């Protein structure tokens, strides 16, 4: 069930996420309970041939929870939206897959992450990627804009998950695909609603 959150709760959650990911933009090391960086990418089975084409500093910034590319192929010429693109690793991997005839757009709540993603992009020869800072519930694209939507460890941070999923569906072309890696609840929550809001993004 979607939680009932006041506007103040949503602001608190969003502020907390921005603060945490401003730190993550510097380096994710030690901030997550699972491997990050190159170790994380190798453990998750990212294509080593594509990783070889990206600078080490980009690989070091990775802090995803899974490998959305393990869920299906991405074809040359396709357009891809990466919701919660972070330091840009998944967007850059997608950009390699779609080639010059395709296009990738990464959205992120954190301005520090968008800045970091552009710094990473400049270290590559890719010209088919753009990053945007985004907060809100309506994706800033017309209907049917993308062949594919990917997301990695982001939906667990979004209070209005159903709304964002509807938006993801809206911006997909007919027959478009959604590939998501994320954290899901597998056990009982021990904290009360207010404590969970306070620690939502941790």
């Amino acid at each position, binding site marked *: 069930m979607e939680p009932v959150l006041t506007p103040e709760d949503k602001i608190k959650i969003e502020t907390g996420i921005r603060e945490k990911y401003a730190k993550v933009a510097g380096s994710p090391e030690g901030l997550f*309970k*699972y491997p990050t960086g190159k170790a994380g990418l190798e453990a998750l089975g990212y294509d080593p041939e594509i990783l070889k084409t990206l600078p080490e500093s980009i690989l070091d910034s990775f802090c995803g929870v899974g490998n959305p590319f393990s869920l299906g192929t991405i074809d040359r010429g396709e357009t891809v939206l990466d919701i919660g693109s972070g330091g840009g690793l998944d967007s850059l991997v997608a950009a390699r897959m779609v080639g010059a005839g395709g296009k990738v757009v990464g959205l992120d709540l954190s301005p520090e992450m968008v800045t970091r993603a552009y710094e990473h992009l400049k270290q590559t020869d890719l010209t088919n990627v753009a990053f945007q800072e985004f907060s809100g519930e309506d994706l800033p694209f017309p209907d049917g804009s993308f062949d594919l939507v990917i997301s990695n460890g982001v939906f667990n941070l979004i209070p209005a998950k*159903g709304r964002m999923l509807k938006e993801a569906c809206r911006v997909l072309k007919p*027959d478009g695909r959604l590939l998501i890696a*994320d954290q899901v609840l597998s056990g009982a*929550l021990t904290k009360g609603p207010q404590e969970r809001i306070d620690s939502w993004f941790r």
Partner: protein
Amino acid sequence: MDFLALMKEAGFEGIESVGETGFNSSPVTRGALFRGKKSEGGKSMSVEDGLLKYREFFEIAYADGAINRKMKHLIALGASLGAGCEP
């Protein structure tokens, strides 16, 4: 509502929970992989959803108004008999 149900409500079909990633952020959460597809014709609708929408339409159409519900049913019955609809 779980995540798969949210994906269905959002309009995705062919929804799958493909497996776990092994990257767990806490003792009560686990990394998981999901995929879905937007229908070729736009937002897909299940048979159940379609029947629900038809029922909503039916109730609105036959609601009491300038013509009461009973009269509307009688008009509909007359129209269907006139059109030769099978009972």
